[in-house]
């Protein structure tokens, strides 16, 4: 712990402070000059944060700004090197996550840490099950869980249901139930809306409002500014591990200000201009009558060379499953997939890749990356065979190719020998997309390419995608964010309940129309069985 005074803190941007009486509740958490370093990286470099009871305090910052590290410090995963953490008026250090939980700080991570094969109640009370003589009091636990779920407005979730069978939104509710089972005074939510479909976000906000009404403080992390406007009370902005603005009013601070505090830039992400109509390219991908029961039915679509086709739809509308089936990662029950007129062997990723397809899957870490391996090996994962001679790999050539990709995608850090694990989400996504810039990819399938990616990296990814199309690569893009689909794609398909309900040039659709189409009729709850 250092006794440094505030004067010694050097920030490159002036620290902005809003009037302290913006929120009435007492201060529950105060961080002063918190520093945390890792080998080679100064992850937190003087963070100030003040959170009051009953407020939703939003944390903004690009990927790599230090948000994740900050959360882990608060959750007791990391201990700060210096600086002060004051919890409910007293200096505090949390030796481990259990200590933080006992103190009343609960964290809901982006990747939910639930045990899929335990019940809702068992997950809610995991690690602190109510016991009598060493036996778990199952009945009592179920009753308490039902109470908590009721408090969260989700009394309809049965406490004995297996978590595996719940949709993503339901799992999130279970995570919150776990937080409440600890009598948490502060709940940290790391991009809770990233896994939710549009209508479920409203439900999340309702729950958050109920929590804050009970005096619980919430630290809310999101890349979506409109969410912060809607749910947030105050905003703290991080950049390069430092607080560049503290306690801004969430509703009234101009977007321009927030973005510039975050990035040092004054624009929000923009979509690259569509090139002047160069006439349709040759038809590249032709999908006819593709069907997998319970996921999607009778989907036909086509992608031309140099065209970006976007698929809009809710989670559970079958869009990710459709993409994986086109790619051969799932086997179609009916219908055909053809590349440049030639039918692909169903259920064979190898055949799809050989035909020139590449995919950036929805779950970067679990579906796309070898986290412990160096960046260059991840970039060349699909192409190292091409650089090999007689089965012998050419590491020098691979590094050179990966370097070229890193250069053109502005990967940070640039050193391609570093393990992918050490990269931020946006940069990891660049590695996954960059993989398919090598070789002769003709069609790129992108599933939620900007999930968990910050504003700056997003704009960069959009440029990359547009540049690819300009080079004649066809792109099939799936995204939950309607503006993204409309802004980036040339042509848009709207999916609902496993069917394509509308197909039109992006210029003929607007956000409200698409949202209406996406959500019309009965809503599907999560993924179908």
């Amino acid at each position, binding site marked *: 712990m250092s006794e440094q005074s505030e004067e010694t803190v050097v920030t490159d941007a002036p620290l902005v402070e809003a009037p302290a009486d913006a929120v009435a509740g007492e201060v529950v958490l105060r961080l002063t000059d918190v520093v945390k370093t890792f080998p080679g990286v100064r992850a937190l470099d003087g963070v100030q944060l003040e959170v009051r009871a009953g407020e939703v305090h939003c944390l903004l910052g690009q990927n790599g700004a230090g948000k994740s590290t900050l959360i882990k410090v608060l959750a007791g995963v990391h201990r700060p090197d210096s600086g002060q953490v004051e919890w409910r008026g007293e200096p505090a250090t949390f030796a481990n996550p259990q200590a933080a939980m006992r103190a009343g700080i609960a964290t809901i991570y982006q990747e939910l840490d639930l045990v899929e094969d335990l019940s809702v109640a068992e997950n809610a009370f995991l690690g602190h099950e109510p016991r009598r003589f060493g036996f778990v009091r199952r009945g009592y636990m179920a009753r308490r869980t039902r109470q908590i779920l009721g408090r969260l407005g989700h009394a309809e979730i049965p406490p004995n249901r297996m978590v595996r069978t719940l949709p993503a939104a339901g799992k999130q509710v279970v995570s919150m139930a776990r937080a409440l089972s600890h009598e948490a005074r502060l709940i940290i939510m790391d991009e809770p809306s990233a896994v939710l479909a549009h209508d479920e976000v409203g439900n999340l906000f309702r729950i958050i409002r109920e929590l804050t009404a009970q005096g619980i403080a919430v630290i809310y992390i999101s890349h979506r500014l409109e969410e912060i406007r809607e749910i947030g009370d105050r905003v703290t902005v991080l950049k390069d591990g430092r607080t560049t603005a503290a306690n801004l009013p969430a509703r009234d601070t101009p977007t321009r200000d927030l973005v510039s505090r975050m990035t040092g830039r004054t624009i929000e992400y923009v979509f690259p201009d569509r090139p002047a109509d160069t006439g349709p390219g040759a038809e590249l991908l032709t999908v006819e009558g593709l069907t997998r029961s319970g996921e999607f039915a009778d989907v036909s679509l086509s992608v031309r060379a140099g065209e970006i086709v976007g698929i809009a739809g809710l989670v559970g509308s079958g869009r990710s499953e459709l993409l994986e089936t086109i790619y051969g990662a799932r086997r179609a029950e009916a219908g055909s997939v053809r590349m440049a007129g030639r039918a692909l062997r169903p259920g064979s990723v190898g055949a799809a890749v050989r035909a020139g397809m590449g995919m950036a899957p929805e779950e970067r870490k679990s579906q796309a990356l070898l*986290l*412990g391996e160096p960046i260059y090996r991840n970039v060349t994962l699909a192409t190292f065979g091409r650089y090999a001679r007689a089965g012998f790999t050419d590491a*020098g050539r691979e590094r050179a190719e990966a370097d070229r990709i890193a250069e053109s995608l502005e990967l940070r850090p640039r050193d391609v020998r570093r393990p992918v694990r050490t990269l931020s989400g946006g940069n990891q996504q660049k590695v996954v997309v960059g993989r398919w810039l090598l070789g002769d990819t003709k069609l790129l399938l992108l599933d939620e390419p900007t999930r968990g990616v910050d504003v700056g990296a997003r704009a960069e990814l959009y440029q990359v995608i547009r540049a690819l199309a300009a080079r004649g690569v066809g792109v099939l893009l799936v995204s939950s964010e309607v503006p993204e689909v409309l802004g980036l794609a040339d042509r848009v398909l709207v999916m609902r309940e496993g069917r394509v309900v509308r197909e039109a040039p992006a210029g003929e659709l607007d956000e409200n129309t698409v949202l209406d189409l996406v959500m019309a009729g009965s809503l599907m709850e999560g993924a179908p069985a």
Partner: protein
Amino acid sequence: MSDTSPTATPERAAQLPAQSPPVDPAETAAASEKTTHGGATAGRLSWWSGDSGEGAKRNLGLIGVLLVLIAIGALTRSDLYSNPDWVWDNVLSILKLASVVGVVTVGMTFVIIGGGIDLSVGAIVALAGVWCTTLATQSYGAGGMIFSALTVGLAVGLVNGLLISYGRLVPFIATLAMLVAARGLAAEISDKQTQVSDNQFINGIASNSLLGIPLLVYILAAVVAAGWVLLNRTTFGRRTVAVGGNPEAARLAGINVKRHSVLLYALSGLCCGIAAIMLTAQATSAQAAMANLYELDAIAAAIIGGTLLSGGRGTIIGSLLGVIIFSTITNLFAINGLSTEAQNMVKGGIIVAAVLVQQVQFRSLTQFLGRNRLTT
């Protein structure tokens, strides 16, 4: 963190790399020189274990353990260690002791890095040994015996792989079943008798030396060298790491994960076939109970050597050091006239200690290196 450089401008992004242009060697060299910044340590040590600096550090730890064991030997039997001729002979006998299990461990290392496990290796060695020493096989001479041992090993490994990949059996179960079945078949073929090998060429593999070094040690060296090249320098090795590290990512990158798994078990079987010839030569006979518990020795050696049991990480050099550490312990007990029972207890302890030491040493070493890099 330098995560905030300005957004790619359209012109900038438009300069995306042309697809796979020819790369001239000079450019490649320049590029790799550029990348050595911050990765200098990894670069310098890379000949140890491909591009993995972690593996090299781990291996240094193992060499330390080995030196400690030798030091204990020298302290407890200073009378023997004062004779250089005896020391050289003793080194050779340790390596000879390590040779058979060493060959099996190379195959096992591939299987484990690839995300599997092979419990049937000892049984495959026994089956291949018995098969190649039947009177019928021996009548074809040394060539026939070697061919049959290798073929049997490869075939059994293939069956393992097919059951696991396409029959979707869990590797543990499939190879456990194979362990039981292969030993049963070996007992059936040999009629539970010890089959003596009359072939002088085969027997000579164990008794002959070249330039003062036993042939068995050359075979071990050859298999280790081939394994190292295969793992670190070929597409097969890269696929192995990818398939074990993240099977889903490998599959979505277009790698045929199932076929590769089959090949891994076949490779392990092939190594068992080689080991069967070596072991048969050593005993000048084969029987169904030979190579007992080799699976445990091989797994333990691989794990000590830093191979991750969940797959995706491991080195051939580490596994070799693991095997040599085990045979050095055996040797240490033999020269001190101690019992096998005590030896096994110590081996168990060594497995735990080696893994614990590696974890601690590795963590502190990376922290040390990281801090150094920050301050300089």
